């Protein structure tokens, strides 16, 4: 072991690390550790000069192992591994010590402590690097087909980009039609073009593209495998329609006697039948039978639709179908749901009839919506003369969502315009801040001001029907502090629109687990890097686009859809990819066959070999998480790159300064685990 020579490089990261940690001291200290041949500090290790420094030192001093103490390995482990490789070292003989996130950034108040902690971290890495073994990466082929989950505008764009480049795409959408929220909107800000006019052609293209296989009314149930080789189980819910026969003529739904409130497409403002097509431009054109509201499934009789179907396309006995797909890449574009405004009781939604949500209002102003585009009160007859629009409902509020929903200010201004245009009513917008930071958005805001909307800076405190002052009878009163005046005001209005927050779907956390990616506490999927890698995730081959990663408007969702497609196309173009060889292996000679590990593996990578009576890890499925390693009662599972020896050595390194000389270096590795 004496011939091993370790090089240690302590990065300043500009002021990020050097501002809090005494980097020179750390480097000097590290030089005193056993096996360290050279120890330096440097301003920016990730710069080309920093990388060259490592390469030159390897050649000049014959270094055999490298430690870089800098930022998170998520960021630059690949960078320095490549540098090692260029210098002729096996890239797995490199170890990154994170003294930024783990020391300097979290202890800004105490330089001494931060420096001591940095030393401990570096010490751990130096001892650990000594125990690492050279490894060779696996090569995986990239399957050509791509799975896109979610058929909103983001997913539609991804699918079309990839399909147009000549590659097969499967699109899985949970609702009966693709289109997502954009299909519900009337006009889109800031240009006010008609949402359907710009969306429908794209939906049509998806439905008719030779490279796209569309599966609506379907959901992904299970995902196995890894980048390039995913196996995906999709449940196609029974539509109860034989699509080969259906012409989409509509005789069925026009005869269906079961009318229910449509909470999805009409946002609760309109009705649909039990057999329904959500909207005229739906893709595909076939209806579905909603078994929860269909009279036949409840009472055993009715079948009106079947009687009237001219092509005999209705099949009440149709069952769910399971389809298994093999794909190389996955793009999640599952979008958002609207915040439930009933949770803010002071605004009276669900109690006061003329309080509406933003999505209800979108349906109302939509020419194909329940009022044919007329702005009307809940009675369906009366036009309002005053309308109050309340911003930030469920956003920017720690009781619900702390974040800003990003799109509602603009949508609220759009509503102000539409109300004015359709009714001439007086409009009051209640806002905390107006957020219009995109191209032509501020100009749109000015246009609304010009049109005469009253913008009151103050978050609405409450909406009440309890009249107190003259002129308030029969009205809804919005009470707020006009903060620019510093006085409480009560504005009587006929109609209130609540700009509800954009939230992740209720099942977002579950979906993130299913696809093996991270999500924020709220449930928005986490990007690999918020600035530099916004559509990738920590799981190779799984990408995200659109509002599922955070509140976004249409232009941003479209951009992300295209960006995700570009990332997928790169991988398809490469044809294969290197995968980290970090896997668990079972010493079969010593495995007792207890099978404890079998069910613990989150990736189902461990199989039991019946005739030998031992468990075995399938390296293609194993992700090296280490669950089984920790669980094995016989301690015979070893995680490559995270061996017992390397972990014990790292702990010893962390405690290096706290240990007596005699206690140190007792740990030399290579003995069986029990012996220690």
């Amino acid at each position: 072991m004496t011939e091993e020579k370790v090089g240690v490089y302590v990065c300043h990261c500009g002021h990020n690390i050097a501002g809090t940690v005494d980097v020179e001291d750390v480097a000097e200290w590290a030089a005193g550790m056993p096996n360290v041949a050279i120890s330096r500090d440097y301003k920016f290790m990730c710069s080309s000069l920093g990388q060259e420094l490592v390469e030159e030192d390897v050649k000049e001093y014959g270094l055999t192992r490298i430690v870089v103490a800098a930022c998170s390995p998520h960021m630059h482990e690949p960078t320095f591994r490549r540098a090692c490789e260029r210098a002729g070292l096996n890239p797995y003989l490199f170890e990154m010590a994170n003294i930024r996130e783990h020391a300097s950034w979290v202890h800004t108040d105490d330089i001494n402590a931060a420096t001591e902690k940095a030393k401990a971290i570096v010490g751990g890495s130096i001892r650990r690097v000594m125990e690492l073994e050279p490894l060779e990466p696996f090569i995986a082929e990239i399957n050509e087909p791509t799975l896109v989950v979610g058929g909103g505008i983001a997913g539609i764009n991804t699918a079309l980009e990839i399909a147009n480049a000549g590659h097969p795409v499967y699109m899985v959408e949970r609702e009966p039609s693709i289109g997502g929220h954009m299909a519900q909107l009337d006009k889109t800000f800031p240009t006010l073009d008609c949402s359907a006019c710009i969306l429908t052609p794209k939906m049509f293209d998806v439905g008719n593209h030779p490279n796209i296989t569309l599966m609506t009314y379907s959901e992904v149930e299970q995902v196995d495998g890894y980048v390039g080789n995913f196996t995906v189980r999709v449940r196609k819910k029974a539509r109860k329609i034989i699509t080969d026969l259906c012409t989409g003529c509509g005789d069925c739904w026009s005869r269906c006697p079961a009318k229910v409130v449509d909470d999805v497409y009409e946002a609760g403002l309109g009705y649909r039948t039990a057999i329904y097509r959500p909207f005229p431009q739906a893709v595909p054109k076939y209806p579905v039978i909603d078994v929860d509201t269909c009279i036949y499934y409840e009472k055993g009789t009715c079948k009106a639709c079947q009687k009237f179907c001219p092509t005999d396309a209705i099949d009440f006995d149709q069952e769910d179908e399971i389809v298994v797909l093999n794909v190389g890449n996955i793009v999640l574009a599952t979008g958002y749901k609207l915040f439930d405004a009933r949770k803010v009781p002071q605004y009276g939604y669900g109690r006061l009839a003329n309080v509406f949500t933003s999505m209800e209002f979108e349906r109302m102003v939509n020419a194909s919506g329940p009022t044919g585009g007329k702005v009307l009160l809940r009675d369906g007859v009366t036009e309002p003369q005053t309308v109050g629009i309340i911003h930030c409902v469920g956003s920017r509020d720690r009781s619900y969502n702390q974040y800003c929903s990003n799109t509602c200010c603009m949508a609220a201004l759009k509503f102000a315009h539409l109300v004015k245009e359709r009714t001439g009513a007086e409009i009051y917008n209640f806002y905390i801040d107006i957020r219009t930071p995109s191209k032509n958005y501020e100009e749109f805001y000015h246009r609304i001001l010009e049109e005469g909307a009253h913008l009151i800076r103050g978050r609405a405190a409450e909406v009440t029907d309890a009249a107190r002052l003259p002129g308030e009878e029969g009205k809804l009163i919005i009470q707020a502090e006009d903060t620019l005046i510093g006085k409480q005001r009560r504005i009587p209005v006929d109609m209130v629109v609540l700009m509800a927050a954009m939230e992740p779907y209720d099942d977002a956390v579950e979906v993130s687990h299913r696809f093996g990616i991270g999500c924020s506490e709220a449930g928005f999927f986490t990007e690999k890097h918020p600035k530099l890698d916004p559509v990738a995730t920590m799981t190779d081959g799984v990408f995200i686009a659109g509002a599922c990663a955070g509140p976004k408007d249409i232009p941003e969702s479209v951009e992300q859809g295209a960006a995700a497609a570009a990332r997928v196309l790169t991988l398809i173009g490469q044809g294969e990819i290197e995968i980290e060889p970090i896997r668990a292996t079972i010493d079969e000679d010593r495995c007792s066959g207890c099978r404890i590990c079998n069910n613990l593996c989150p990736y189902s990578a461990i199989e039991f070999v019946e005739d030998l009576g031992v468990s075995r890890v399938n390296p293609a499925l194993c992700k090296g998480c280490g669950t089984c390693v920790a669980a094995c009662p016989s301690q015979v599972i070893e995680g490559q790159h995270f061996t017992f020896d390397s972990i014990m050595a790292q702990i010893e390194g962390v405690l290096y300064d706290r240990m007596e000389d005699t206690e140190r270096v007792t740990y030399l590795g290579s003995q069986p685990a029990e012996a220690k």
Partner: protein
Amino acid sequence: MSPANDHYAYYPGCSIRSTSKAYEQSTMKVVESLGMTFQEVEDWNCCGATEYFSINSLPAYSLVARNLSLAAEQGASDLVAPCSACFLNLHKTDKYMGKYKDLNEDVNQALAAGNLGYEPGSLQIRHLLDVIVEDIGFDTIAEKTEKPLWGLRVAPYYGCLIVRPDSKYNPEYPTHLDELLRVLGATVVDFPLKTHCCGGHMTQISDETAYELIRRLLHNADEYQADAIATICPMCQMNLDVFQPQVNRMFKTDFDIPILYFTQLMGLAFGISEKELGFGSEVVSANAALKKIADEAPEKAKKARRDKKALPMPESLP
């Protein structure tokens, strides 16, 4: 029928012993007929109302904590207060002691000077209404109801402090008192201002401000043609009842709405006599309202047929 009994410690509060005897009288009758026993906290002291907290903070918390300590010593698991302000002070002190370590240490140091101590969280602090609704339940109350309050239109008034700043009930639009009154047979009117302020101690500071707050509530109950307002707090009762003539004078109104404790209404429905329930001590007499109680259930309003043109109305949260 009722849960294990001896775990309720009872904190009456000062008002119930002076300005609001009818509340305690009716409470005791109702509690007795529900088979519950309340054990009064021995030698309890004033909760400090809002005043003490305006003068000196740590002594105020310590004042309240003495009661918590005494109640816990009695071996109770729940501490019940019929007054909303007392409930708030007891509840808040317990909660803050649990949340803020320094405060907990200081209060316990002060208590130690009187050989007392209190571990935050050892008692469940509850308002009487909560105990009746949750622990007794509507089914038992329905069984007990002998003389339903048929035909009596009641506005359920919660006031502030049992739902804010921190409770399991909706802070803006609770419904448990509504539900209770409905079980008693009363017609519960919508009362949008049900959790608005009764004026608190404002009557001592500014008549204009205080009477306006009271007027709003009376006006709103009147708009919904309430025969009576049901309250759950001595302070609310006093402000709406005792100052009602003053309000009428200031605003040239003629409100005549009796303000009754919910326990008085429960007692009536259970068949207890008016006298035993302390009726007669209200300034705005309840006589006219009580005469409206009918022998027969009012006809149920027919469900209006859905107007073809109307847009669907969202359901309220369960």
